[in-house]
């Protein structure tokens, strides 16, 4: 049986619903050594900023039970080097590209989106409004992240939407009471989709040295450990949104991805698990196709939000 895996994520056509999470796939080239990355529904690149960023000082990562903490701090080559050095490879391969962007103000996001569109640097924009490792989440109280304040989410989204015709996805944080609030704010401000979730704030201490394990003290928790949390947020958001959701958080297998799709995600991203298994996203695609065949589902879109409560 032929299975249609193609989905339309707020105007972005993906040949299958599987992308990779920003920051867990760099700019694609490294993992192209292990499998043909053009098979992905889309490649989501590491957050890009206007200037290159050195990121936080090391140590920047530590394993945790069924997950990991990272405090990379958005180290990236900057938009210029991306367009010059990284983009050609992805375009040559024929990849669909989601350009994840990060800035210090709405204008910076707008500028990044404009450049990506103008220079064919992406087929959709994902605005990272929720990185726990850049705003000083260690000391600022009461919500340092844009994605924790619905009115700021709206403001940023409007600025980006005004700057580009590309589909715009807004990436939100799980460190919040009700994910529906910033998600609705994004939708009302014109976002074409939301990406759920970024990492959860966490930390670790080495009891022997009595020092924090990460130099930045605080980092973002990812991996299978957080999957149940991510799934709940996707399900919550799906009940209230018209725009599509890209679900992520601990996805390792097609069975995991199916949970997110059934909860209401139109597409999914494989994140940290690629570190363990570089071709994990490809296996998810293959597994989704096999799932549809086994269940005689001709079009995967029939499964979006199809959980029977």
């Amino acid at each position, binding site marked *: 049986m032929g299975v249609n895996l193609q989905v339309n994520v707020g105007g972005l056509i993906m040949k299958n619903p599987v992308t990779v999470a920003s*920051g*867990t*796939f*760099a700019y694609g080239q*490294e*993992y192209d*050594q*292990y499998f043909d990355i053009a098979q992905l529904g889309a490649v989501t690149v*590491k957050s890009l900023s206007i200037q*290159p960023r*050195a*990121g936080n*000082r*090391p*140590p*920047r*990562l*530590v*394993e*945790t*039970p*069924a*997950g*990991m903490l*990272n405090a*990379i701090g958005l*180290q990236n*080559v900057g938009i210029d*080097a991306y367009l010059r050095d990284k983009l050609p490879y992805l375009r040559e391969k024929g990849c669909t590209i989601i350009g994840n962007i990060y800035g210090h103000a709405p204008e910076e996001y707008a500028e990044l989106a404009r450049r990506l569109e103008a220079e064919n640097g992406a087929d959709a924009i994902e605005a990272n409004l929720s990185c726990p490792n850049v705003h000083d989440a260690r000391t600022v109280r009461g919500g340092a992240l844009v994605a924790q304040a619905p009115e700021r989410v709206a403001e940023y989204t409007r600025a980006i939407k005004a700057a580009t015709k590309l589909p715009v996805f807004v990436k939100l944080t799980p460190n919040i009471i009700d994910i529906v609030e910033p998600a609705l704010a994004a939708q009302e401000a014109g976002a074409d989709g939301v990406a759920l979730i970024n990492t959860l704030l966490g930390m670790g201490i080495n009891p022997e040295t009595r020092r924090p394990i990460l130099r930045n003290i605080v980092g973002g928790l990812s*991996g*299978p450990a957080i999957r149940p949390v991510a799934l709940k947020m996707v399900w919550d958001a799906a009940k209230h949104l018209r725009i599509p959701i890209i679900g992520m958080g601990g996805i*390792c297998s097609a069975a995991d991805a199916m949970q997110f799709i059934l909860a209401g995600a139109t597409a999914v991203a494989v994140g*940290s698990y*690629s*570190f*363990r298994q*570089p*071709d994990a996203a490809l296996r998810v695609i293959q597994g989704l196709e096999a799932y549809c065949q086994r269940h005689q589902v001709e079009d995967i879109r029939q499964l979006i939000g199809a959980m029977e409560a």
Partner: protein
Amino acid sequence: MPYIADCRITTHQEVAPEHYRLVVHAPQLAKEAQPGQFCMLQVREGHYPFLRRPMSIERIFADGVSFLYKVVGEGTRMLSGMSQGQMLNVQGPLGKPFPRESGFDRYIITAGGIGIAPFPALADALKRELGKAPEVIIAARTERFLLCEKDFRQMGCKVHFATDDGSAGEKAFASEVLKRLSPAAGTVVYACGPMPMMKATHAVCAAAGAVCYASLEAEMACGDGVCLGCVVEANVEVETERMVRVCKDGPVFDTQLIQWESY
């Protein structure tokens, strides 16, 4: 180019208390591997431990490679429980090898503790390719953790011992032994061991005008340059980056490149 494969464990033995040598059948890996490169080992199926574990390649054989490792936590403990005949998922070879340039007067290897792991392969290559059997300083806490002596002697290397407790060789740090060997301009030193040992080794070499290559350690998630988790701070910008990735830009670095003040 690195690849990932299930490899059969052909030998697995305890070579000292809590220290193991593990040999896997991996012909393709053996063909591509260079001394100083490493592999990411998937200790277990399932989600625990979540990440692979980096291990230097100890020796390169015709049809496989060996690793030499110390049990320090749960991952290495689980690894040590694997038996000959079982399959181990191996990703590699990864990272940049030790530069092997001719034209130096002297080749010295200096290893602290389990830092000895990458050197049997290096000494073998230096001997075969350049006809130079390096001098080797093996340092450890105490005598029974002085590993690989026989391998080096068989290659014709001169071996110096240093122990913290004086149970064998000099009661000294590796860097002190190195200093007494009087490295100079024209000497190349290869170092691997705890950070303070490599920092001291760098200082000795810098003062003497010797070239020093060190294999660094860092916590790794991907092992392949993707996650940017394993960086160390560089003195100069490398390809526009101030942070260099131990996994991809290293693990072997010219020690002049590293900002040692942080350690």
